[in-house]
């Protein structure tokens, strides 16, 4: 019984691997890791909301072939990204590059966070001033 349950769990865990779109295996584990990372950060232009690693369409498999061939030929990750964006534009990169055009995209979360901190700090200060000024205010200990 226990063995069957374990088998069922193992089957469930392995199911996604069996369903994988991409079964490419590069000879070197380090290359394979870079290949998988790269194909997950390149957009499938035909379906647009999937990476080329997850997409079954023909163009995605052509682009995966291109990534694999370039890695095998010794290209760096950045060279592969540049190759893709030179042809398809920055839109193919799921991780936008830092440039004058995208700087606001990177800066905005920090700016918003900072703004939130300032607002929160001012509210806390005002409240604590109100408490300090209030003669009727009793702490539970007093």
């Amino acid at each position: 019984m226990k063995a069957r349950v374990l088998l069922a769990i193992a089957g469930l865990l392995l199911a996604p691997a069996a369903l994988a779109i991409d079964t490419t295996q590069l000879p070197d584990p380090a290359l394979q890791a870079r290949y998988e990372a790269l194909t997950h950060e390149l957009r499938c232009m035909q379906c647009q909301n999937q990476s080329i690693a997850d997409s079954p369409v023909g163009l995605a498999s052509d682009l995966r072939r291109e990534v694999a061939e370039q890695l095998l030929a010794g290209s760096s990750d950045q060279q592969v990204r540049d190759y893709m964006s030179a042809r398809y534009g920055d839109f193919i990169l799921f991780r936008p590059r830092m440039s004058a055009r995208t700087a606001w995209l990177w800066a905005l979360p920090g700016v918003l966070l900072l703004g939130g901190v300032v607002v929160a700090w001012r509210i806390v200060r005002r409240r604590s001033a109100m408490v300090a000024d209030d003669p009727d205010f009793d702490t539970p200990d007093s």
Partner: protein
Amino acid sequence: MNRYLWPLVAFALLAIVLGVGIKNSKTKGVVASPLIGKAAPDFVLPDLRDPDRPFDSRSMRGRWYVLNVWGTWCVECRAEHAALMAAKASGKLPIVGLNWKDDSAGALGWLAQLGDPYVAVPVDADGRVAIDYGVYGAPESFLIDPRGIIVHKQIGALTDAIWESDFVARAVTP
């Protein structure tokens, strides 16, 4: 101003910015090509109608032409075919038909049945030339100038009107 009004003002501003953005994006889902203004990648591929005589893109230097990416599996290509035939009949711009990841027998049958608007039909069986041109869906059409520079790219089916306004007009008065 009432401080409770500020969020409303911020919301209204955001709504206006987004609204204008959506309204002005007549080309939703169409990605601008980074290749506009750059040299069209050169290639040599076998010609569909005569595989022994390869087509060399450099043979088109010195004149304006259109590179049209098509395949028999492409539904929109069938829709634009009449416009291509009309374009050929008008004789203003030669059209090279890049046959993208297609079955050659089927492609020959398509041209025999619907008419052949192309001056050459290079066969891109494994899709490598299409990648060099940043093609992500057929049909796509590139207007290429006499120096071999990509001047304009049309994503999606051509019509008679688009052919005149975006291709012929640009080629005559660039």
